[in-house]
């Protein structure tokens, strides 16, 4: 069976169960003979590999361009510093000095330098790893510790995810640039939440985010039963489909703690994850509607 589709799993709040939904859905699909690819875009804290016990077969470093100043040619005119909007290069009557951690790699300083004293080299910001597990093609990014900017790495990871079949993207938490970078270009977004005030508040932020990007989405309520009814009321009022519910169950929490798949610990839940995927697939936008 085959179905070309990109489904991103996201949430505003962290720890609601994104990775649980992503890995169990991927494994359930793989066991049902789908061709599946899992892309872990939570590059700050990638965890999907723990559950899939993936054996990595390749690792390459991810780099961003940074300026290098040829001190022989630089006359300290300061034009580079004038054009840089990120304070990543300055020249105060001396030779230009760079601050690579602040650089966005736009290349503006290279163009601005009248002496052609600036060239670009690359700086490693993390790694991209690939592997296979349980028939699932696996790709993940690992942000280097101390590195602030994850979006360029997320972009590089997603570029590796090409080919037919189902692609499941495990997104980072939040609502800002790393999340946007992870979910853009997807056909459907699954927002995982828990029925608590924090979960609901951050779900609302995530809903605004996905609506702004214009991707169809639905909600999975994880740990159903722990909180109150406000999340369900919210979804009803906002006309947001609840495409799955995973009951609160200590056995799930314990299996998770050991790094096991829920569908191995509680095989009866395999159907639930296939159902979530099925509802996502039928709610997804069709590619021909997509100008990108």
């Amino acid at each position, binding site marked *: 069976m085959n179905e070309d589709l990109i489904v991103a799993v996201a949430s*505003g*709040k*962290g*720890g*609601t169960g994104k*990775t649980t939904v992503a890995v169990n859905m991927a494994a359930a699909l793989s066991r049902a003979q789908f061709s599946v690819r899992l892309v872990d875009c*939570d590059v*700050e*804290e990638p*965890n999907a590999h*723990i559950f899939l016990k993936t054996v990595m077969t390749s690792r390459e470093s991810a780099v961003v361009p940074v300026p290098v100043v040829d001190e022989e040619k630089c006359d300290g005119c300061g034009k580079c510093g004038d*054009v840089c*909007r*990120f304070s990543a290069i300055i020249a105060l009557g001396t030779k230009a000095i760079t601050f690579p951690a602040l650089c*966005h*790699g*736009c*290349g*503006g300083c290279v*163009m*601005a330098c009248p002496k052609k004293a600036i060239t670009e080299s690359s700086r490693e910001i993390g790694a991209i790893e690939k592997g296979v597990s349980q028939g699932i093609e696996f790709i993940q990014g690992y*942000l280097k*510790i*101390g*590195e*602030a*900017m*994850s979006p360029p790495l997320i972009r590089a990871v997603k570029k590796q995810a090409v080919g037919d079949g189902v692609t499941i993207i495990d997104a*980072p*938490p*939040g*609502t*800002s*640039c*790393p999340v*946007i970078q992870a979910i*853009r270009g997807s056909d459907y977004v699954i927002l995982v939440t828990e029925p*608590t*005030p*924090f979960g609901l*508040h*951050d779900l609302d*932020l995530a809903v*605004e*985010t996905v609506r*702004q*990007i214009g991707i169809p989405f639905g909600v999975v309520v994880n740990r159903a039963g*722990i*909180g*109150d009814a406000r999340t369900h009321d919210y979804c009803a009022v906002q006309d947001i489909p609840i495409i799955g519910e995973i009951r609160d169950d*200590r056995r799930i*929490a*314990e299996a*998770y*703690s*050991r*790094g096991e798949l829920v569908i191995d610990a509680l095989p009866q839940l395999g159907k639930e994850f296939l159902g979530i995927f099925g509802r996502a697939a039928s709610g997804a936008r069709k590619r021909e509607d997509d100008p990108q």
Partner: protein
Amino acid sequence: MKELVVISGKGGTGKTSIVAAFAALAASKVLADCDVDAADLHLVLDPNIRQREVFTGGSVARIKIEECERCDICRNLCRFDAIDDNFRIDEIACEGCGVCHDACQYGAIELATKTAGEWYISETRHGMMVHAKLGIAEENSGKLVSLVRTQARKIAAENRLELVIIDGSPGIGCPVIASMTGVDLALAVTEPTLSGIHDLERVAGLAKHFGNRLAVCVNKWDINPEMTGRIENWCRREGLAVAGKIAFDPIVTRAQIAGVSVIEYSSGSAALEIKKVWRRIAREMELENIA
């Protein structure tokens, strides 16, 4: 004045519930919610906003289409694929670097400053609080975090308060780095799961990278006692203080639903254990006003 940041690596380990409890326990403090991406502390502390300010982040390019000659130079130079075939700017992809603006020979591209969010100074029943809301899909969260911290330190200095308690964000990227540089102590709240350990190791690496002192607290420790033991042993080997462990308790969620901290909601075991963690942190930071 001292600064304590509560971080976790992995999301959802209980940072905000613990910060809210510390808010109820600490005597002389200002609160700073630096999880500007998905701030939740206000749901418990019910702030009265006293001052509201606009946060302007970076820039965004705008093409004045009537002046555009469609020469394609901007499209060739843009490294973020932010200009489409019809010379429309994708504001989400645009980094605001200004390369297109500088290169356009027709003056058809302007750089506009983006309103990227708001920040607030508020009063709560547990003292002053500085918090913020980053606009949807915005960048520059690190800059907003730094702003919130600066304001909180200012309030602490003006009011001779001893401590700034910072609620951090998950991960190890830009907002986390901005929330922890130069603090006196970072408390990592973790959970006894393989993911929790993996993420704790990375956040501990980050603390080491920036020379921060780190203490660790294991939340919901009884979900997997063996894993909790592994975390405690690991902390000992790494020379990190174990600030305590808190058993799983449905009271924590019930307190959240009631809109109060665990300390105010109950005097049960979770509340007692958090009090112990707080005392340990206060000793570790050599605070004078413990409660």
